């Protein structure tokens, strides 16, 4: 069974956000990393880039495929996880921790509220 922390919000497209004030950290879920299997490359957005919710802003590559990652929230990228450059496998081993993708300054604090809570996301993954 995949792990779904209760303190995060989830997008249907398998990204998570952890909100702290007007900033949020974004990554992909345990279910997503399991589906992708071995992550061998992660392409992250430029710091300072402004993204809209639903916009493709990162690419995660497994041996077999390249998959777009969609920003679940709107705002400006303030930091990216540089560790993924040398160790993309962190996405597999610690998707909700060291495998985070980027931090974003939220332009609409209500957006994360509208995302799925853990229970609803869990139902989607099971179904």
């Amino acid at each position: 069974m995949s792990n779904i922390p209760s303190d995060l919000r989830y997008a249907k497209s398998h990204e998570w956000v952890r909100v702290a004030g007007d900033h949020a950290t974004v990554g992909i879920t345990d279910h997503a990393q399991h589906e992708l299997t071995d992550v061998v490359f992660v392409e992250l957005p430029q710091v300072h880039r402004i993204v809209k919710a639903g916009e493709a802003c990162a690419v995660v590559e497994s041996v077999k495929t390249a998959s777009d990652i969609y920003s679940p929230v709107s705002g400006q990228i303030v930091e990216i996880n540089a560790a993924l450059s040398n160790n993309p496998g962190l996405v597999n081993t610690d998707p909700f921790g060291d495998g985070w993708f980027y931090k974003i300054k939220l332009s609409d604090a209500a957006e994360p509220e509208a995302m799925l809570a853990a229970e609803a996301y869990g139902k989607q993954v099971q179904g």
Partner: protein
Amino acid sequence: MLKRTPLFEAHQKLAARLVEFGGWEMPVHYTSIMEEHRVVRTAAGIFDICHMGEVSITGAGASSFLNQVLTNDIAKLRVGEGQYSLMCNPAGGVIDDLYVYKLGVQEYLLIINASRIDADVPWLLQEAQRDIGAGVLVTNQSETLGAIAIQGPTVEKFIDQCVDTFDRAPSSLLKNQITRGEFAGQPVYLARTGYTGEDGFELVGAASIMTDLWQRALQVGLVHGLKPAGLGARDTLRTEVCYPLYGHELDEKRTPIEAGLGFFVSLDKGPFNGREILAMQKLQGAPQRCVAFKMIEKSPPPRPHYRVWFDGQPVGEVVSGTLSPSLNLGIGMAYVPTTVAQPGSRIEIEIRGQRFAAEVVKKPIYRKAS
């Protein structure tokens, strides 16, 4: 509706990730591609290749017929031996690449690509209608026969136990030799060959025995590290050793010479389909060549259809590309102009609009440390 192999239920029980491949529902991996790749390079992996096609060519005219529809020289084969060969159209384009085994003086078995059965069988039947087909019987056995590949350095230790009896011990075969065995009262052919760059065998027998044969192999191979491996690892393994995959390195518009497979084109054996063009290309060179390359800077993995640049110009296209699990860097094969094809040529691979440095290298890209 996707076709399923006799091993479909076995894959489901192993919780395989199933995907569409050439009209078939096949396991891409059971654990992960990286893990299964490593298992095949260090121990052994077992692959379902029941989707591949089998065609027997029999009769007094079989040898001479095959020598005119295939590029390699069948006269080099003794009974119990096989060879890699290509089937070309008269323009030298590749209809399929295949293995041909000589099972008897007038009896051959072709192992063909799953995705090409519907092209190969009508072609062979049509060619057999010509004068070259006198005394030849072409029989498509793809529906009734299945096949399993067991690949990896430990396979020699348990291959003899995978069947009940055999004419020659499979472990004593040389590369490309084939022997007949029996399993559950049914004939099984065991050939020392494969598609991974490792020692290995391909086992061909009735579709009805495939599940039991698969279970037997897993049982006797267990202590030697044998694990199921999917098509994902099969693809990374073959890419590392630069074996062509039909639809990528090969198609009806590419010749074996362009693909870098001139070794399997025998010009001195008499007439065969495509000979004129292949002879000319062997002599004068082909305009393009399929080369192997390695990424030489940090980059996303190269993938099929990515553009290749040389000296500021787009010059070709990637046909196979992946992260090499053995080397942990991006590798692939690409068609480029012959002028760019020498090992050491600096090329660039365009990935999502950005160009990354790569280098043409000698084939194979990966070679076992020995």
